[in-house]
């Protein structure tokens, strides 16, 4: 279609339309952010089901409160704030749940959380390497769980989703400096937890 290069309708216009109650405009907005939101929720929770829950809650919340959006930050930041807060809630709930979480032991004698389902889309020709990968993945996952929810969130946003520390600060309603220090702490903790991994 000629003219596609001229780009999609401006976000600002869509937001204003959505604020007037235009659901189609809101759905259009959702479409530009929803993959990123799902990606984040999926990696953080490790579960498609929970990722979907976070997604649903986040966008419903956005829909209900878009009337309060005053363009004081970018819409991108605003959406990420909503999702991040929900993710933080999720992480805090998980911490509590962990105390009584059902624990099983796998073939190598490693304990793992039955609730921990890391989706692994990579299927290789080398099953042994795949298994090793999965093990590493699990260990990293466990190490990440040792972080506080905030540390985990900062690390997640910075390392896995490439957000600039400045944005991370904005999203978490704090300064870039604080985000930086949190990143340091998180990295130190992770290095400690994964020290024997080469």
């Amino acid at each position: 279609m000629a003219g596609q290069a001229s780009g999609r309708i401006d976000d600002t216009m869509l937001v204003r339309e959505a604020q007037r109650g235009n659901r189609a405009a809101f759905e259009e907005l959702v479409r530009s952010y929803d993959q990123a939101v799902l990606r984040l929720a999926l990696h953080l929770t490790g579960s498609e089901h929970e990722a979907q829950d976070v997604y649903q809650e986040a966008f419903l919340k956005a829909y209900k409160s878009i009337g309060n959006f005053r363009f004081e930050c970018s819409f991108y930041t605003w959406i990420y704030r909503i999702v991040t807060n929900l993710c933080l809630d999720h992480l805090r709930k998980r911490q509590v749940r962990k105390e009584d979480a059902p624990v099983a032991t796998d073939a190598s004698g490693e304990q793992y959380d039955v609730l921990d389902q890391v989706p692994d889309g990579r299927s290789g020709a080398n099953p042994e390497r795949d298994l090793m990968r999965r093990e590493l993945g699990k260990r990293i996952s466990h190490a990440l769980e040792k972080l506080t929810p905030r540390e985990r969130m900062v690390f997640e946003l910075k390392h896995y989703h490439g957000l600039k520390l400045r944005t991370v600060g904005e999203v978490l309603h704090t300064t870039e400096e604080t985000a930086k220090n949190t990143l340091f702490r998180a990295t130190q903790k992770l290095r400690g937890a994964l020290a024997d991994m080469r």
Partner: protein
Amino acid sequence: MKCEWVKENVLLYVYNELPDDARYELEQHLARCADCTAELKTARKFHTMLSELPVEEPSPNLVAASRMRLQEGLETAEQGRFWHRLIFDPAAWLRQVRFAPALAAAIFIVGFAGGIATTYKVVSDRGASIASVPVSTPAESSITGIQSISQDPGSNHISIKYNTVSTQEAQGSLNDQRIQQLLLFAARNNYNSGVRMDSVDLLTQEPNNTHVREALMYALRYDSNPGVRLKALDSLGPFVKSDPRVRDVVLEALIQDSNPGVRTDALRLLDPVRADSSVRTVLQELARSDQNQYIRSQARIMLSQLPEFD
């Protein structure tokens, strides 16, 4: 001493978060210091290792399922607060209707999703009866859809069937507020493109009014049916010169509508304003590189009729 600073900042370096001058200094130091270079290597290794827990792209199924579930959720979501931001100004509307010609009427946009308790009066300049629709409770006034719209040929009489809990019918002229509200609702929200077409058709009879014009611009921008978009476009055409918003929306349609018929029509309708700088810029681009041959040549012709400057 420098090594301490470097070691503190190596993490930020790996994440590309160092400002340019710090980054430069760090790299200069690394070139001379084996210790710190080793430190960087370790940091990088660790960084890479963490990708053993990769960020998976959500599967198309997951995306689709999530979207569908959200749509359902949006339908039942509490919308109460939005709809209070009515664009409708009762006083202005009444003033306008009093001096409007026969078919003209003030039209306003009011949301119906979830039901609203509203009161409105209908005033006709012809001195027809003033009907007052009483305040209804949300449940009673919640409209789930417009079933059909028809106009008696050669008359002002319009009949609209809309659904609330059961199918109801509203009858009246284009002056009738209730009729207008329903027309606007239909133009924006109805799933049946035929009904949307009918409502836009009726609305095109009075594009002079701001709110009708907004509804038509909305239809041109967002309606999924090209026939509806074309209808709205044709009605907005005459206002391209007097209303810059209309010009911009028509320009947008020219640039990015998926239907070639809509695009050619938009091009034709922009002729009176071809000298406008924004239009001219678009014409130049189209003349140069548009995929559609007719549009390319038409744009060239229109440009050739413009005086040369800059």
